[in-house]
């Protein structure tokens, strides 16, 4: 005997060349693993890129909420420290003014409005309105400066005051082609006129990058005028000897004079819409200013986020739990009716000689060859009140003409149509399991004295359970996420949660809520799957 075959008690087993046996085994297996990995790599990549990644991205949207902090960064920062009582102070309004002004220039304020509209009705129109109103607020100062000196309405003075001379020269030499020289603030401008410098820089860079225009040729936004007014009111310009010193000195004098009319930001917002001086919009903004929010999930569970914490929505606004419950109940009903219909067919299929079984199998698979829409629409024709079945029943006198049965646009219609559509998914796994049950089991049971029923119930049925399990899981999971058929035949009482998800994806564009609903649906399916595994055992599921 060599060392390699000695028992493990003498230390690790060694291969013929003296390396530990485990190591050399894993080396030998590594090539196999690499090969296997290479074989599945294309599919793995495909699934990762087209399936896992989009789903992960979509699920991420259910908690992601950076729109407020991205669109209104200054406001979000200030609101974080706000106590949530009453209406915020002037600085918050000031921050909101500049944030919204820039957002309006970028045309992002309406997007934020629609986002907040999910949480507070009316937010969308408020933001759209405010985009226009903010312009008026700035024009108050713009007009006064222009009246003082027409140059305040020209691009060049602004550029000279705030622009770095080197940049000015390069920008002036720019021929309209190629890259513009990036705007640089003049040294000292920032310390002297901090707000104006910040907002002029924002304007200049926006003009350069978004519009592709030269800041030397565009007059600044009115928000820059507002900022200049604020700076002049606060700053002392006596030591200033930079470009356009006289012009600035005159403007400073104007601002300090009593004739200069000014408007607090709070009042300006109040003029745009009274809603801005109500606490609600600010509370909503504060609640949704963090980067991540449980709001979509709460919404999907008929709850809402309030300054006091999470609470249930009012009775008349609850819809999703009802839809989840209905989806589960109807999926179970569909699965159950599929089991009842499929079992005898699968039994017959697996016990027929192969020629007749093949013919029958074609009949079972026939629905697969027809478009799903065609089949669903056919059910609509069959089941409607003036449809084939009702007409026949009336003609037979079983149902009065005035009491035609409502079989469509309700739960019954959805259950009937979906049972028909999903039936093959139940028959196929059942058939493949049943056809592996050797006929000798049945014969053995009979030879042992069991009647036909006992043979079926004690011997055949237990062995066909894995097929029922596989078919049920398949049908249940397919139906819980079904969309087209309930959409067409479901009416209002027969629609599923997936229809609501589709609505939020394509109509209301509330993707976050759709993602939250989808995530909950996925979690429900996984929990049910886990429960099924615990109760029935997933080993008992066979597809043949």
């Amino acid at each position, binding site marked *: 005997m060599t060392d390699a075959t000695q028992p493990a008690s003498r230390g690790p087993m060694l291969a013929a060349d003296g390396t530990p046996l485990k190591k050399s085994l894993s080396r030998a297996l590594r090539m196999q693993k690499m090969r296997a990995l290479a074989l599945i790599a294309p599919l793995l990549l495909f699934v990762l890129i087209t399936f896992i990644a989009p789903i992960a991205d979509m699920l991420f949207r259910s908690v992601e909420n950076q729109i407020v902090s991205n669109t209104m960064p200054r406001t979000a920062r200030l609101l974080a420290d706000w106590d949530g009582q009453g209406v915020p102070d002037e600085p918050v309004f000031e921050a909101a003014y500049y944030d919204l002004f820039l957002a309006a220039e970028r045309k992002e304020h309406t997007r934020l409005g629609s986002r907040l509209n999910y949480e507070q009705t009316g937010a969308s129109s408020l933001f759209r309105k405010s985009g226009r109103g903010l312009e008026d607020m700035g024009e108050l100062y713009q007009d006064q400066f222009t009246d003082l000196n027409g140059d305040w309405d020209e691009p060049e003075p602004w550029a000279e005051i705030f622009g770095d001379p080197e940049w000015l020269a390069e920008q002036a030499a720019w021929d309209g082609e190629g890259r513009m020289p990036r705007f640089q603030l003049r040294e000292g401008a920032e310390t002297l006129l901090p707000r104006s410098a910040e907002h002029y820089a924002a304007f200049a860079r926006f003009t350069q990058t978004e519009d592709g225009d030269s800041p030397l040729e565009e007059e600044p936004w009115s928000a820059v005028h507002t900022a200049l007014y604020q700076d002049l009111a606060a700053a002392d310009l006596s030591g200033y000897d930079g470009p356009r010193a006289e012009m600035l000195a005159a403007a400073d004098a104007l601002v300090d004079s009593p004739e200069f009319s000014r408007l607090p930001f709070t009042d300006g917002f109040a003029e745009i819409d009274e809603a801005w001086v109500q606490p609600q919009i600010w509370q909503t903004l504060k609640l949704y200013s963090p980067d991540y929010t449980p709001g979509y999930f709460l919404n999907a569970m008929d709850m809402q986020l309030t300054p006091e914490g999470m609470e249930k929505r009012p009775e008349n606004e609850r819809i999703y739990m009802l839809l989840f419950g209905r989806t589960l109940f109807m999926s179970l009903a569909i699965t159950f009716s599929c089991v009842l219909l499929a079992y005898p067919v699968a039994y017959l299929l697996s016990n027929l000689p192969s020629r007749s079984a093949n013919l029958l199998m074609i009949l079972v698979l026939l629905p697969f060859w027809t478009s799903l829409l065609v089949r669903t629409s056919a059910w609509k024709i069959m089941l409607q009140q003036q449809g084939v079945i009702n007409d026949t029943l009336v003609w037979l006198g079983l149902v009065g003409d005035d009491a035609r049965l409502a079989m469509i646009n309700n739960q019954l219609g959805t259950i009937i149509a979906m049972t028909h559509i999903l039936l093959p998914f139940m028959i196929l796994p059942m058939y493949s399991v049943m056809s592996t049950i050797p006929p000798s089991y049945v*014969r053995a*049971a*009979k030879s042992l004295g*069991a*009647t036909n029923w006992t043979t079926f119930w004690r*011997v055949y049925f237990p*062995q066909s359970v894995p097929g029922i399990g596989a078919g049920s899981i398949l049908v249940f999971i397919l139906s819980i996420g079904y969309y087209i058929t309930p959409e067409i035949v479901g009416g209002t009482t027969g629609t599923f949660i997936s229809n609501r998800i589709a609505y939020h994806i394509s109509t209301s564009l509330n993707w976050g809520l759709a993602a939250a609903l989808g995530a909950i649906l996925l979690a429900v399916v996984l929990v049910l799957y886990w429960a099924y595994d615990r109760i029935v055992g997933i080993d008992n599921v066979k597809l043949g």
Partner: protein
Amino acid sequence: MPDTGSSDAFVAFERVQKSYDGVSLVVKDLNLTLPKGEFLTMLGPSGSGKTTCLMMLAGFETATHGEIKLAGKPINNIPPHKRGIGMVFQNYALFPHMTVAENLAFPLEVRKIGKSDREAKVKRALDMVEMGAFGGRRPAQLSGGQQQRIALARALVFEPELVLMDEPLGALDKQLREKMQFEITSLAHSLGITTVYVTHDQTEALTMSDRVAVFNDGRIQQLAPPAELYEEPQNSFVAQFIGENNTLEGVVQEMRGDICTVRLDDGEVIDAKPVNVSKVGERTRVSIRPERVEYNRERLRPGAHTLKAKVLEFIYMGDIFRTRLAVAGNTDFVIKTRNAPDQVRLKPGQEIEIGWLPEDCRALDAL
């Protein structure tokens, strides 16, 4: 030798025919009786109708024509579960979702036997096949031989008087098969049950049975105890099918009571025992068992016809020597000799003369 008369027949097939497609007969006019306690084997190649006969007896196939009787009563119209026949299947057919004990209790449960009684019977049956400790296991946790024992115990636990076995040892390896052959026969005999056993393995048939029915082409070719079957095959098929056999073809030249002379196709003349040839000039196929061929002249009867033979191959097989010869145009003529100390070991190329006792050489029908 069991009585084959139909008066005390426990199982009887009377003129039974079976057709699946209405065109050809799988079983043609089967007449067979077996007395209580007999171990009968149905032996034959696949497609010979033996399994169909078994299935008709069990009730899983209906006879197209004729009657099957059990203990004197026709059972054609009795469903299988009321026939009370134990059956062991080729693949054991143990219910995979039940434990061994549950499998054994099943026939007792459906017979509404009380729990304590049931448990006692199950235990006894398990002990009978020496599997007492395995009651709690699932069939999948047992080896093939163990499953076979359980299947046997299950077929016997409800104490049937007739047990059918459909190639029950086919899936076992050789050693286990031989052990089980012995166990099944001793069990069947000690319990006194009547057994119908189907196999295509002729060794199994010879070692286990009281009588063997050789099936071919839907008919019983010969029904006889093993020794008779081997030593006195009634036709060429049985001679070929049972054991190893040398054949030479020729024409009957002369009939002298229970000895005839046959002129082989290459002109040589040999002595043979006429079995199913009746007149001079008839074509025949003579059959000689390899171990009955003699090349030691001293042991042959004076005046016996001998044939020239050339040794083609000598195979050492341990207990015996197997020598292949070319005899009268047949290059597959085999002789077997015991590995005794004084035995001559023939060498390839050696020319010898062979002969046999006329009664060992049977003139049968030419196929």
